Structure formats: structure tokens, C-alpha cells
């Protein structure tokens, strides 16, 4: 274990409150929790990539940052119009 992997493990703990809020709170609050979970997961992947010393893995958080943005934006638009 190095400092990167310790950081990634600590960040994964941060997904627990996001998941709990997404399950228990209203839909719009769950959307905010999803946004934060996307950011936490992205940074966890950055730390894991560095921790395992695999430069090629660094493309994954970059893709997730874009895809998480598009997905959450679509849900926000849908919630605002139809639900």
C-alpha cells in the first residue's frame, strides 16, 4: 500500500453517504448525490491509476468525467420537465 492507494480507499468511504442519500432522500437530492459520487469516483480512479503505476489507466477518469457530466445533465433535464 502506498499513499495513492490509501487515498483511493479513503475516497471510496465517501461513496457511502452519497449512496445512503440517493436511496433515502427525494429524487432531486439523489441527483445531487449522484453528481458528488461521480466526482468522487473520478478522483478515485486517478488515485488508483497512480497507485498501481499504470499511466494508460489515466484515460478512464477522463472518460468518466465527460460521461458523468452528460448522464447527470440528461437526468436533470428529465427531472425538470417530466417528473
Amino acid at each position: 500500500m502506498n499513499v495513492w492507494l490509501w487515498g483511493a480507499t479513503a475516497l471510496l468511504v465517501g461513496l457511502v453517504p452519497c449512496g445512503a442519500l440517493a436511496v433515502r432522500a427525494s429524487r432531486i437530492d439523489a441527483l445531487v448525490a449522484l453528481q458528488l459520487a461521480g466526482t468522487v469516483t473520478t478522483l478515485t480512479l486517478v488515485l488508483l491509476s497512480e497507485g498501481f503505476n499504470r499511466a494508460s489507466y489515466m484515460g478512464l477518469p477522463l472518460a468518466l468525467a465527460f460521461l458523468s457530466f452528460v448522464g447527470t445533465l440528461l437526468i436533470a433535464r428529465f427531472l425538470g420537465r417530466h417528473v
Partner: protein
Amino acid sequence: MTVHGVVIGVLVGLGVAGELLCCLGLVVMRDVYDRLHYAMASTAVPPFLIAAAVLVEEGWTQPGINALVVAIVLFVLNPILAHATARAARSRRG
């Protein structure tokens, strides 16, 4: 432990602590707008601290630049999400 290792440890520690603080704020706050504030704060400083740690470790190589691009993408795109979410919350409130 070298100065190099200490700098990386401090940057990663501060970045992770910032993210966890935002996760805590998300649970503690009662209003959707307050929660949105914490969700957006998580994309402001902590990603740049972690990108700085990667840059200290790797220098201006592919992983370092990639980490910096990830931080910039999060910083630039997430305010758009905050705006869309706040609009959705407002329209649902009536």
C-alpha cells in the same frame, strides 16, 4: 521519507480530506441548494490538489497532464450541472 514524498502525502491528504468533507456536508445539509453547494465545492479545489500531487510525482508527462485535464474538466463542466439541477429543483417546487 523524503521531502518529495511528504509533499505528495500532504497534497493527496488535503485533496481526499476536502472530498470527504463535501460528502459529509451533503448528508448534514437539509436543503437541495445547500447540498448542491457542497457537491460543487468538491469539484473546485480537491481535484486540483490531487492533480498537483500527480504532477509532483510524474512531472509534465502523460499521467500528470491527464490528471490536470481531469481536474479542469470537472471544474469547468460541473457548474453547468449545478445550474441544470437548480433549475430542475426550482421547477419541481413550482
